[in-house]
């Protein structure tokens, strides 16, 4: 198609990448711009629940029905991002029986498979559940990895010809004759994959249509063209436990409230959350009491949380939207549904649509609706195929077991790698060279790191999101420098140093709210290691790069110590 319309999608979260994939698959010419990494926004700071719809089965049945529909689709097209853990709505003795029954009938009304099980049965499934849980409703909740899913969407969009620009911020909308005709973008480091230190620049991207998928930031994009988009950002806190105390999603069966859900996520379990309106999606208070409150409340469901180790906490902002005439006071009352705002209709400004609200779970459906809308504008008749065509990594993924032995990895590491990579495992892990483990906590090998670097340049935070390296219990204490080392020889020393610093800072940031008990010990050890062995407390080479040529090449005749003299206590004995 030579005359395919050129569409700019602003926002590299689940919504934006989902739209980009859909449009690209329908043959449109797509450019996606994202100010940070993919998932830089809310998508990278959410709970990881693949909703069954159960949570909305009483209060918001329209959302609930969308959830169960998309839940089924994602299991299929994104199998390598989804773990079907199942979920429970558990009832404590003091929780209302009436609400329990409402939840059950609500699930039935929305077509969500739901079944009541006894407290005993629930504890058989989840031995760490409190002994006084009365009973539970089991539903098909799941866990989903937002990073992998978004990266896979972007990769698929790219395969279909889309241009994906990360670290590229939209600074203005180009408006001519009452119509948006493009965006002005500031690239942090030039176009293409990110390289630290490469000079960026401004680019005007002229397009036929703009899709504003900036979630909580949608109002800001609107401002650029004088539009009023009333997004009401609402923050929520999440706390990551070091290990999985539960293998099933545990919801509290109560009308609404803070701290009522535990989601198993990869090697961890994530506690959540709260709901509080904020003014600025990028700048809002993060308070320790929010974390404490969550542990204190959720230990009523899983008592061992009280003593368990947390490795970090983070906050996200929901891009809630409600039509101006509703006027809810409490953000928990705002619908979780999404809205498509056609600015031509709404504000008489052509050339742009905004999508606001919604959930991660329904990102694909939102993408489909927007893409239908865009295609309609251009009279294009192309079917949506995103519900049927699996994402890269989820194609033909039936032989997980057979894969692992071939890569010569220790079983849990091989298993983890294959689960993360899905059907790409073979292509990524089949290497000729040595393939040591770079991150021991999460079981990530060099081959996977190298694959991620290929995809995201020198941006080690993006490598982290793709692989989970540095996201385990040492929070990068033992692997950040190894990850940085993997940038060599592709990238030079100063690039590597900048990338390493950025990763370290990001890793420290999230631990601020976890510094007690074991994680404090961990942080002390990390600090000592990074300061004493890596000069991270005060590096004399920080500003100038090191003149490696100034070093001599060492003594001429170094004697190689033979194996035989290795002493069993770890030292070399004798001389």
């Amino acid at each position: 198609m030579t005359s395919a319309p050129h569409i700019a999608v602003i926002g590299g979260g689940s919504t934006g990448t989902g739209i980009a994939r859909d449009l690209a698959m329908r043959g449109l010419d797509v450019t996606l711009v994202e100010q940070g990494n993919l998932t830089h926004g809310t998508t990278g700071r959410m709970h990881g629940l693949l909703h069954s719809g159960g949570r909305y089965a009483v209060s918001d049945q329209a959302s609930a029905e969308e959830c169960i529909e998309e839940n089924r689709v994602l299991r299929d097209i994104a199998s390598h991002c989804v773990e079907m853990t199942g979920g429970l709505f558990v009832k404590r003795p003091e929780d209302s029986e009436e609400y329990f029954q409402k939840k059950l009938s609500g699930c039935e009304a929305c077509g969500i498979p739901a079944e009541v099980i006894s407290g005993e049965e629930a504890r058989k499934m989840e031995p760490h559940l409190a002994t006084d849980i009365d009973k539970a409703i089991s539903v098909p909740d799941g866990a989903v990895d937002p990073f992998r899913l978004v990266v896979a969407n972007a990769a698929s969009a790219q395969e279909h010809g889309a241009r994906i620009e990360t670290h590229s911020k939209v600074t203005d909308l180009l408006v001519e004759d009452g119509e948006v005709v493009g965006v002005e973008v500031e690239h942090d480091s030039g176009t293409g994959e990110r390289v630290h230190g490469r000079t960026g620049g401004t680019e005007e991207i002229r397009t036929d249509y703009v899709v504003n998928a900036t979630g909580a930031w949608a109002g800001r994009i609107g401002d650029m063209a004088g539009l009023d988009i009333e997004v009401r950002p609402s923050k929520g806190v999440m706390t990551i436990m070091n290990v999985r105390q539960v293998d099933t999603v545990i919801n509290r069966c109560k009308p609404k409230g803070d701290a009522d859900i535990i989601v198993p996520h990869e090697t961890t379990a994530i506690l959540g959350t709260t709901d509080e309106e904020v003014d600025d999606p990028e700048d809002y208070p993060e308070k320790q009491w929010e974390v404490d409150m969550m542990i204190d409340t959720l230990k009523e469901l899983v008592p061992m949380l009280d003593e368990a180790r947390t490795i970090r906490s983070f906050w996200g902002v929901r891009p809630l939207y409600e039509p101006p005439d509703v006027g809810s006071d409490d953000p928990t009352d705002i619908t979780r549904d999404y809205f498509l705002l056609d600015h031509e209709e709404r504000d008489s400004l052509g050339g742009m649509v905004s999508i606001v609200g919604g959930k991660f779970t329904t990102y694909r459906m939102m993408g489909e609706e927007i893409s239908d809308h865009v295609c309609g504008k251009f009279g294009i008749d192309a079917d949506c195929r995103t519900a049927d065509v699996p994402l890269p990594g989820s194609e033909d993924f039936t032989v997980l077991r057979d894969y692992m032995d071939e890569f010569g990895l220790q079983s849990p590491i091989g298993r983890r790698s294959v689960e993360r990579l899905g059907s790409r495992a073979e292509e990524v892990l089949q290497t000729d060279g040595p393939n040591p483990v770079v991150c021991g906590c999460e079981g990530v090998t060099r081959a996977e790191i190298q694959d991620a670097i290929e995809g995201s340049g020198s941006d080690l935070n993006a490598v982290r999101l793709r692989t989970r390296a540095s996201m385990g219990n040492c929070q990068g204490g033992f692997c950040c420098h190894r990850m940085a080392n993997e940038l060599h020889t592709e990238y030079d020393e100063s690039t590597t140093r900048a990338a390493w610093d950025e990763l370290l800072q990001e890793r420290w940031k999230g631990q601020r709210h976890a510094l007690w008990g074991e994680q404090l010990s961990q942080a002390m050890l990390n600090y000592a290691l990074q300061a004493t062995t890596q000069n991270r407390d005060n590096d004399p080479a920080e500003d100038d790069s090191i003149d490696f040529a100034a070093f001599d090449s060492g003594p001429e005749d170094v004697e190689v110590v033979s194996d035989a003299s290795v002493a069993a206590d770890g030292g070399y004995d004798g001389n």
Partner: protein
Amino acid sequence: MSDAESPPEFDPEAPNTGEDFEPVDVFPDSDDFDLRPGADSCYKCSTCDTNCPVAEVDDEFPGPKFQGPEQWRLKQSEEDYDVDDSVMDCSNCMRCDNACPSGVPLSQMHNTARGEYVSEQMSKFSVEYWRNRILSNYRTSAWLASKMPRVANAAMNFGPARWVMEKTMGITSEREFPAFATETFREWWRAEGGAAGSRERAVASRERRGEDPDADKKVAYFHGCYSNYNTPEVGKAMVRVYEHFGYEVVVPEQKCSGTPMFANGMLDDARRHAEANISSMADLVEQGYDAIASCTSCSMALRQEYPELFDIDGVDEVSSHTFESLEYLRIHEDVRDELGAADVDGELAREFAYHAPCHARNQGLNNQAVELFRDVEGVGIEDVGDSCSGISGTYGWKSEKYDKSMEIGAEMFEHMEDADGKTGMTECPTCAMQMEHGTGYDIRHPLELLEAALVE
């Protein structure tokens, strides 16, 4: 919220399994424990890896940190998550437990993972499985051999037979099987009048010592397989020394402690034996007996491994009333004082090269023999250092492990040769085999020396 404190002083009543961590019995009546929460105590410092003797000589072995907290943390749902086969290369010396500054239940994690590996992933038709099963059920072979010890001694070390064992079973022919005694300890014990005889002798001792003849001093002896079938002199020394201090000894029904079974992942076998041992010990403990072992691995099994791995009625009571033989006497009697007045002459008036077994180290017992004997007239004792002997029970008996076992032991051999004494001493029977194998020295148990010093 727990604070990772400095490691607590060794407390023989509470195995160090990490502070607030209670593994959950996932399915009651099974041995499946969810040990993932144990990873909370690990901050990856790798001290365990640097203390692992196997990792030192075996580059393929990923080490205790991976085997334990990392592997457990990476495990997901119960089913369908393989345990890495490298867990079979761990020798279960348990030095990692001792090395960990943060109370990670490493050996429990290894034992549990190994059990899972053997029951779910290892072929029950493989030579390795049967070889390991035979090695770990040493008690059964020993029981058979004890029926005709002379024939067994000849047959077991008969060259062609050993060649066949090596070839078909993977049991190294480098080592000589230990000799079986012509009279087992239990046979001797019965001949000595059993519990009633012991009671009489204990009462006589109390009178001689000026103690209350009715004093409540009674112990149940867990002799283990080795001092029953191979070195009854150790068992006899235990009885004589304890009676000397006025203790009545009983020798309850018992099976293997399970140590070799843990090391080979044969947890079903181990559980059966543990149940028998707990059942006979628990009754005695209730009646006021303490359980005494002369083998440091046996005491380790009863006090630490049983409660960590099995949920058996009475397991905690037995655990908290189990002691090693010298340890117990040092707690309750002024042994040093008596030794101060003693003088050893005769056969054991020698210099000893003492090796502390890894499992003794874990119970805080690594200095006890040297502390006891260093000032005794007529003998000398020297610690040969803190390296591992390398045999670790059945580990060094496997053909594919033999070289590594000897490599680990090299430091100990060298230090033994540098020591003044040309006789070895240790509490552990398999360490003794290795010491003898590496140096040719005669190896004795501290109880034998205590007997020589104190018992007329």
